[in-house]
């Protein structure tokens, strides 16, 4: 620790802190532009000057470390003159267009010009006029306003890892530029407009639409992925205008999916009125009418329920209550990506916070396209790697990460058991054992070299295992996860406080699903098959879109052709064409409720936006249905729902404190563990090529598909529908072009793209068009087309 004086006050800060940070942490304001707490120090704006006793010239506080006994002064006449001059230098080339600038009202330059400027500029020569750049659908540029603080460049290098922004030329010809083909390569690009202190990089979608001072801000939780970032929804007259990271949120950034999905809130795809089908069309109607229609389709019928997990905890609980009261014997599915419904040794959710993952000695990512699925967690890993800590990865593709893995191996999904087995052998050789390992090993003959990477990482003091979708959706997932559990036990990463077993989930509230619904879990595929076979009359789809999302879209389509559909949702989406009745449920921005992210972090939304139409919170819709179906209503208020939560799920008792106002920052709901889930692997001989279905953050989820902005980005970032490694074709003596994929008894022709970053022996399919139909199969053959 270092003691120093700031404006005669004695303060103590950790050694090595910069003067600027010492000032900030002690509430002393020093103006700055280029400094940003999440970026490296550039010290180029020279706005942060302070005086240090005994020093001949003012010092830039952001890059000057504190020293014992140093006497810092932040306000003097000299400094005021310096700051005024800095403002004058900056403004000589800055247009005076605040009235038409989106940043106006939230602009550092404008604020400081008022606080420190001289009022009138003395520059009379021509101003520099750089040309604007097209950085894609999310970021608007107005480079005449750029003050060259290089925050965006450092962001692209250090945070996004893309390095696609840079500084061209020198002197006052210096230009900030992006080298882009269609759009910035980053899934975090929206943050650029936030970190630009002036109006040079702006949010393109909200460009010229609104001004900062017209906005009302609502703290909320993003439910677009299980990260559940703290967000601030900015609205004007109840209309969502922008989504931004919350000021004091856990993570400084949010991803483009969570940010730009906002246009879906007011899209035509929003379900704002109850609707019932009349012939080919859905017609708006009253709640009473729609509920009556629903009852017709549900009462005394064979019903299947499929719901999505991103509703608030209160909403989910209401679904459970409805089920328990009215549909006790019917099938319920809530995971569109899980083939194996046997219990997992460690269920969906993380045992560690993302911060702890960032700090662990070793991190191993098993089969996950993290950048697409959990961009913010990926950013933590990138930060970790920038800090010199390794990340190991094994999977069926070198998924792009915009950073460098310490060790990386390509495998096919069928190789997972062999990888785990090899790691077990190596741990055994080191004397690291767990009961049950022998039995597991006995069932697997094959060994795979990639197991060494896993074993190497496991023999460290702390290791975070991030188990991804390639394993979670594996047909033998329970056995693989049991195997991984054994490895973690053997290596000492399963004890409390050191638990590194993390199963990356598909959606928000993942930590709750197994405790709340584990006993009801059916495979969505089985449920749809049952429906197609005529075993069901009606599907009750609650927020779920099984055609657009998940592995079972082909089966879902077949089922929906067959049965009636009651859809409860915030988005009409592709399910609209099948629905007989649509009941509008409030969006996540419009409810009071509880959300639990993949870390188990609790967030309580209490400042919702007003509904735009007649939509109702999920719990109310569920309770109303319960009543209309003729059952006693288990809860008639939010408070009663919450009581039910505590009754149903003992693991959630802590929430009582949260609802009564206790700070939730340190509250973590643990993810479920099944000690008895000791499934052993099956040795199945597999033919053909493995199929892996690709995920796109711009396309997955009804919200994203309802967003024009994300759809546009999805088009820009799209890859071929079907991709294989060149060796895969070479081994089959095939040439690139139109090829036929044979899956079981069905075949279809596709334009097959080649990429060297996918594992040989694997076919990657996107979920677009008919390629999506392949998602459900695990192997296929490839043969020449016409």
């Amino acid at each position, binding site marked *: 620790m270092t003691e120093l004086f700031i404006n005669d006050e004695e303060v103590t800060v950790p050694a090595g802190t910069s003067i600027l940070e010492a000032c900030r942490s002690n509430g002393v304001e020093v103006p700055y532009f280029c400094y940003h707490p999440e970026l490296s120090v550039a010290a180029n704006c020279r706005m942060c000057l302070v005086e240090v006793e005994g020093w001949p010239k003012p010092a830039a506080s952001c890059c000057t470390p504190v020293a014992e006994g140093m006497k810092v002064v932040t306000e003097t006449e000299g400094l005021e003159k310096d700051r005024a001059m800095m403002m004058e230098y900056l403004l000589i080339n800055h247009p005076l267009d605040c009235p038409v600038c989106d940043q106006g009202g939230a602009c550092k330059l404008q604020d400081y010009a008022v606080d420190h400027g001289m009022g009138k500029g003395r520059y009379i020569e021509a101003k520099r006029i750089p040309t604007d750049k097209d950085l894609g659908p999310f970021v608007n540029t107005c480079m005449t306003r750029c003050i060259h603080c290089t925050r965006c460049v450092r962001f692209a290098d250090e945070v996004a890892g893309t*390095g*696609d*922004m*840079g*500084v*061209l*030329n*020198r002197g006052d010809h210096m230009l900030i*530029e992006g*080298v882009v083909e269609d759009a910035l390569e980053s899934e975090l690009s929206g943050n650029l407009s936030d970190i630009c202190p002036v109006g040079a990089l702006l949010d393109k979608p909200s460009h010229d639409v609104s001004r900062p001072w017209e906005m009302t801000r609502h703290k909320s939780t993003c439910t677009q992925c299980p990260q559940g970032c703290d967000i601030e929804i900015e609205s004007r007259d109840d209309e969502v205008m922008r989504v931004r990271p919350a000021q004091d949120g856990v993570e400084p950034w949010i991803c483009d999916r969570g940010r730009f999905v906002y246009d879906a809130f007011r899209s035509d795809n929003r379900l704002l009125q109850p609707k019932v089908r009349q012939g080919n069309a859905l017609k708006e109607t009253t709640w009473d009418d729609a509920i009556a229609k629903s009852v017709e389709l549900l009462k005394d019928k064979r019903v299947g329920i499929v719901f999505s997990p991103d509703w608030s905890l209160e909403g989910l609980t209401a679904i459970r209550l409805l089920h328990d009261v009215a549909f006790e014997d019917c099938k319920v599915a809530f995971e569109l990506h899980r083939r194996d419904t046997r219990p997992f040794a460690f269920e969906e959710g993380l045992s560690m916070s993302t911060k702890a993952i960032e700090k662990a000695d070793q991190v191993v990512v098993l089969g996950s396209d993290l950048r697409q699925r959990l961009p913010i967690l990926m950013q933590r890993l990138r930060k970790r790697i920038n800090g010199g800590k390794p990340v190991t990865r094994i999977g069926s593709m070198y998924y792009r990460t915009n950073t460098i893995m310490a060790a990386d191996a390509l495998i096919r999904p069928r190789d997972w058991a062999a990888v785990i087995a090899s790691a077990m052998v190596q741990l055994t050789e080191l004397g690291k054992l767990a009961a049950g390992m022998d039995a597991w090993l006995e069932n697997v003959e094959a060994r795979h070299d990639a197991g060494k990477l896993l074993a190497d990482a496991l023999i460290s003091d702390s290791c975070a295992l991030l188990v991804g979708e390639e394993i979670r959706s594996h047909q033998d997932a329970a056995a693989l996860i049991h195997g991984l559990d054994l490895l973690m036990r053997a290596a000492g990463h399963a004890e409390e406080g050191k638990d590194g077993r993390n199963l990356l989930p598909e959606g928000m509230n993942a930590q709750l699903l197994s405790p709340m619904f584990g006993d009801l879990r059916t495979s969505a595929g089985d449920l749809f098959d049952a429906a197609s076979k005529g075993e069901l009359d009606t599907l009750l789809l609650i927020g779920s879109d099984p055609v657009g999302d998940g592995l079972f879209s082909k089966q879902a389509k077949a089922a929906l052709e067959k049965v009636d559909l009651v859809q409860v949702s915030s988005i009409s989406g592709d399910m609209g064409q099948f629905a007989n009745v649509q009941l509008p449920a409030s969006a996540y921005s419009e409810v009071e409720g509880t959300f639990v992210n993949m870390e188990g972090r609790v967030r309580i939304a209490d400042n919702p936006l007003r509904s735009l139409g007649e939509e109702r919170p999920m719990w109310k819709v569920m309770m109303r249905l319960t009543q209309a179906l003729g059952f006693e209503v288990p809860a008639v208020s939010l408070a009663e729902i919450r009581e039910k939560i505590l009754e149903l799920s003992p693991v959630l008792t802590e929430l009582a404190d949260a609802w009564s106002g206790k700070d939730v920052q340190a509250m973590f709901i643990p993810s479920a563990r099944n000690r008895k889930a000791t499934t052993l692997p099956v040795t199945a001989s597999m033919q053909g090529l493995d199929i892996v279905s690709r995920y796109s953050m711009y396309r997955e989820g009804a919200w994203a598909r309802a967003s024009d902005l994300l759809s546009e980005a999805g088009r820009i970032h799209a890859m071929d529908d079907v991709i294989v490694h060149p060796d895969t074709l070479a081994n089959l003596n095939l040439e690139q072009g139109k090829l036929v994929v044979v899956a079981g008894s069905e075949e279809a022709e596709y334009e097959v793209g080649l990429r060297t970053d996918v594992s040989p022996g694997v076919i990657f399919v996107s979920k677009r068009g008919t390629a999506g139909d392949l998602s459900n199969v695990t192997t296929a053959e490839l043969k020449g087309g016409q």
Partner: protein
Amino acid sequence: MSSSNQPCFSEKRLAEIETLVKRYPSAKSALMPVLYMAQEDFGYLTMETQQMIAGVLGLKIMEVREVVTFYTMFKEQPHGKYLLEVCTNASCMLNGADELYAQMKETLGIGPGEITEDGLFSIAEVECAGACAGAPVVQVNNMYHENATAESMGALITRVRAGEAI
């Protein structure tokens, strides 16, 4: 010199680059020497050439762009076979560089950024060449001509136009 085909280093060059890279702790340090090589081989640095160099050294295109645009000796535009660079900084100026530069422009009939019709010459005003004892200094493709005069430069131009060596 540049062609519409994709620029590509010769095998010999690539071997040279391989040796060059080994002299530095990281391949990125080889960027400036490689840019010089490219300029020698292709005349000037088109976007395609820069892209190609990024590929050869495993760099991002932005890393190459930043360097190319920062240094005045890397050219993104073509210039004449002989680039006449007149130093007009203080010491040369005190010894008549401004007049010399004006006269040379007149003799050639071009201004900075232009190429004479025969493709032989371009002219530029540059910063201190570090040879002020010989002011004024004119560099002809980085060959120094000290104590230059309108006559000596005129003679040089005539020689080149007549196809003689300088």
